[in-house]
């Protein structure tokens, strides 16, 4: 096996056996970028490993919404063209402190506001499994980079499925921790109450290592959770068979037959081979959650994106005669259509008392409904298992975030695992866990991953092996 295409753990083991050095590992991934252009990276900024640590010599890619001091950071938007952060995201320091090598900044849809990489502003990103096919978004560049063997892992923001959706489309593991587990300081976000720092890698063990490095309280992010995480995959004996919540009828009402079948195969095998107990649950609020998440994200965007005015950083319209013209032309020329639409929606629903009460306040009530319903479910089941996406790439019948958005609304950890191929393209299943249960979630996902055996069925088409 070549170095580019190895998992995080394989790279660590290879270095441990003296088969290659951290510098050779980084170079192998840079060579892969040179050799196979999938449009994953907006810019390369290779930084070699700074020394020993849990991730020594592991090449990691960063979504371009993550600030690196001295490296242009655009969050996929023209309005941030030329912005060179004078400070570093907290998570970048943690990665480097653990010895990771950094590869570059990956493409995303503008401010991560669309799940469709065709909406990306700067360049098209290909799904390495099938060039010409959408890798999913918003973190499509990050997923394409890992799937193509151009980075061993990637870190990117997830506000409704932005990491898990492309993970599903690109045959990877995509993970979001409990809200606040990883510092968002220095991560450019459009909807801070929904954003969790997400991780992409080839296998669950890689995710566990990354999370151990990144988790922890940060005085610069008041929402971070206290405490650290360690030995996440250490075997703890479950006192009884895991209970898995499934809602087959509801899944079928949103998802394609092939995608539903792929998920059903997983839970049926889990029941037969692992002894997991299947519990049919009701998730009647999926559509409610989808619209509530959309409105809350739009409302927050109308505030978070107000700062982009051409004065202090980023794009600035030329030859404006007064401040009003400077602001309005800068924003009209700098923002893309998707972002403008979301800001208009957000401002509309916050714009007067009647709209606020009819839309924003009601969306917050819906958030309460979803959060409480999930809270109640944890009395009946250990995890909820869903398809990750309702459809294969390129199909647009159902909202792509229908299954992934609720965990952002409720701040819960969730993981997408590749579970098979449909028409030659990967599909994923998602496990959602109670808040704070990342360890149990990753251990269950690890067991499920071994049962599925997707990693061993990886082919050359996009896996870089």
């Amino acid at each position, binding site marked *: 096996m070549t170095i580019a295409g190895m998992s995080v753990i394989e790279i660590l083991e290879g270095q441990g056996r003296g088969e290659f050095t951290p510098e050779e590992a980084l170079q192998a991934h840079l060579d892969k970028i040179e050799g196979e252009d999938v449009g994953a990276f907006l810019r390369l900024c290779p930084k070699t490993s700074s020394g020993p640590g849990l991730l020594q010599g592991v090449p990691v890619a960063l979504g371009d919404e993550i600030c690196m001091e001295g490296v242009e950071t655009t969050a996929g938007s023209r309005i941030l063209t030329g912005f060179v952060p*004078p400070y570093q995201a907290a998570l970048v320091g943690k990665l480097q402190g653990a010895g990771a090598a950094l590869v570059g900044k990956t493409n995303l849809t503008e401010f991560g506001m669309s799940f469709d990489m065709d909406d990306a502003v700067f360049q098209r990103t290909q799904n390495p499994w099938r060039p010409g096919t959408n890798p999913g978004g918003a973190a499509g560049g990050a997923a394409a980079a890992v799937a193509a063997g151009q980075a061993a892992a990637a870190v990117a923001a997830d506000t409704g499925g932005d990491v898990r959706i492309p993970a599903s489309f690109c045959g990877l593991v995509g993970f979001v921790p409990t809200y606040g587990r990883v510092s968002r300081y220095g991560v450019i976000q459009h909807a801070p109450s929904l954003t969790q720092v997400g991780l992409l890698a080839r296998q669950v063990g890689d995710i566990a290592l990354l999370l151990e490095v990144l988790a922890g309280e940060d005085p610069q992010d008041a929402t971070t959770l206290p405490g650290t995480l360690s030995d996440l995959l250490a075997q703890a004996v479950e006192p009884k068979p895991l209970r898995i919540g499934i809602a087959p009828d509801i899944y079928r009402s949103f998802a394609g037959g092939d995608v539903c079948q792929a998920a059903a195969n997983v839970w049926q095998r889990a029941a037969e081979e692992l002894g997991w107990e299947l519990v049919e649950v009701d998730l009647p609020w999926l559509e409610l959650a989808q619209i509530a998440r959309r409105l809350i994200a739009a409302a927050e965007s109308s505030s978070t994106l107000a700062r982009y005015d051409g004065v202090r950083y980023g794009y600035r319209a030329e030859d404006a005669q007064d*401040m009003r013209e400077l602001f309005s032309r800068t924003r009209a020329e700098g923002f893309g259509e998707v972002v403008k639409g979301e800001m208009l929606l957000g401002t509309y629903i916050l714009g007067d008392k009647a709209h606020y009460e009819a839309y924003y306040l009601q969306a917050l009530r819906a958030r309460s409904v979803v959060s409480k319903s999930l809270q109640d479910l944890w009395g009946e089941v250990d995890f909820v298992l869903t398809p990750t996406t309702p459809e294969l790439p390129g199909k647009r019948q159902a909202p792509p975030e229908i299954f992934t958005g609720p965990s952002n609304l409720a701040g819960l950890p969730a993981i997408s695992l590749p579970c098979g191929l449909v028409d030659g393209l990967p599909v994923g299943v998602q496990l959602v866990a109670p808040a704070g249960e990342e360890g149990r979630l990753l251990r269950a996902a690890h067991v499920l991953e071994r049962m599925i055996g997707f990693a061993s069925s990886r082919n050359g088409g996009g896996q870089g092996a």
Partner: protein
Amino acid sequence: MPVTKEEMKRIGEIIYLDLTDEESVRFADLLNPVLEKADELLDGLREEPLRHISQLRNRLREDEVGIPLPKEKVLANAAETQDGCFRVPRILED
């Protein structure tokens, strides 16, 4: 009640996003189905609004003098600067 072209234009002005007539119509057409769906699904909910998922309290710290970002680093990102300040179009009459 659907959003009108005029309403869309007014909303655009609030956020310094001047829209042409054609854009106002296009964005109104984009937003109206979302709002219709929201009307259908959200109406009648009575639960207490969940404003933020985090149950953590605000953290406080001592108000101590520290070293801010270096001024030159901050100004380096601006399109125009003058005398150590951001330069913008004139805001006062002669």
